């Protein structure tokens, strides 16, 4: 069973339907026992990092997520769920995050005023190193992004794939042991997105 963590930070309907399309049993929950007992954990998120961290603390889930991530089970972050895995985010005047992924989350500051922030739409994901999550995914495939802030890893070996936007090349997929996380919305990225989710359901969580 897959636990999709519901911490009132956005809409989990598309995540639910994406797993349903794959015929996979996914439970949307904020119950610590269900999360810790699940075979795999998905940690999504939409909105601002500050609000997300506050919701996690209010529900007592920040420690549950650390425990789930530390247990060795396959753990997938998506979008803001990915961002709050890092040490800190520049959003909301600076937010201390979960510290599970070394690095920080920074705001896009394009030099060209015609570059829109947020980045909204489909952009290429360029593979930096092999990872079971990206099995069968053609290099440079496009995925759906909506974000104003991007992950900046402090250890380059955690970068699984990269994307270019607003003068920066950022890590659009990061991985460390049993943690893997995407900045793009894998659940809204059509067939390639479903393939990534399917890969996650087959991954045993070991680093490659």
């Amino acid at each position: 069973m897959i636990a999709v963590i519901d911490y009132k930070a956005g809409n989990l309907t598309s995540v639910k339907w994406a797993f349903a399309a794959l015929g996979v049993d996914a439970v949307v929950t904020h119950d610590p026992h269900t999360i810790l007992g699940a075979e795999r954990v998905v940690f999504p998120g939409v909105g601002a990092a500050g609000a997300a961290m506050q919701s996690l603390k209010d529900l007592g889930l920040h420690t549950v997520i650390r425990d789930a991530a530390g247990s060795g089970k396959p753990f997938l972050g998506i979008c803001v769920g990915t961002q709050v895995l890092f040490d800190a985010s520049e959003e909301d005047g600076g937010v201390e995050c979960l510290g599970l992924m070394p690095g920080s989350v920074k705001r896009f500051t394009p030099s060209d005023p015609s570059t829109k922030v947020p980045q909204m739409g489909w952009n290429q994901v360029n593979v930096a190193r092999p990872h079971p999550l990206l099995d069968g995914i053609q290099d440079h495939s496009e995925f759906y992004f909506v974000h104003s802030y991007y992950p900046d890893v402090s250890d380059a070996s955690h970068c699984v794939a990269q994307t270019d936007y607003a003068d920066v090349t950022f890590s659009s997929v990061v991985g460390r042991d049993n943690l893997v996380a995407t900045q793009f919305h894998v659940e809204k990225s059509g067939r390639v997105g479903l393939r990534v989710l399917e890969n996650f359901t087959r991954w045993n969580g070991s680093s490659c």
Partner: protein
Amino acid sequence: MLTKRVIPCLDVRDKKVTKGVKFQDNVVLGDAVELAAQYYEQGCDELVFYDITASAERRPIDIEMVQEVAQTVHIPFAVGGGIATLDDMSRVLLAGAEKVSLNSLAVRNPDIIAEGARAFGSQCVVLGMDPVKTDDPAFPSGYEITIRGFRERTGMDALEWARRAEELGAGEIVVNSVDADGTRQGFELELTGLIARNVGVPVVASGGAGNSRHLAEVFTQAGADAAILAGMIHTGEFTIPDIKRDLVRAGIPIRQTW
């Protein structure tokens, strides 16, 4: 590189997709969920649904249809028509839509934009506008906002309204030219470019798409981030793969793998 988005628009009435010219003479083209699935398989980048009678009939939009679409297509889609309150927005988003499109009702109550952005995030709140060309010097941009499917003029300048909507928290603006709508003679490049150059959020061009060249023009000349198509694909005259191939050939960044 961020690609330009190609977005089929489905005008829906009782779960059927219809198409009219200048908001009139609607003909039925097919089942909304089936057409959505077909365009998804063909590689469209996003979808937009307008429940065209919901607003006029003062009733909420068809949530069951939104749920069926969300179960079928795994790409972002927006829903508009008859959305008046935060509750309406919440229902549509929880049914699986990525965005809600506010139009006439946002003109009457602009605060709904700010309330929606605060509650759900700007990325969920799209402002749709229907500007019409005017020679009246009271409108500095040369375009006046209309509502209720062109039936009513508002006295509001199109560019001023776009800027105000961005300030209020709209995350994207759909510019639907009343003059070009349904003509299939090309997008209103002047209007689209004017809005795209003057707001910081993505701008979606709408109204007038008749062939691939029209899309190429609105991306390169007007700086649109996305383009909406309807009649040209609904009739089967063009398919999304055809259009995307033409756009790639024209050197436009387009999503090619799906």
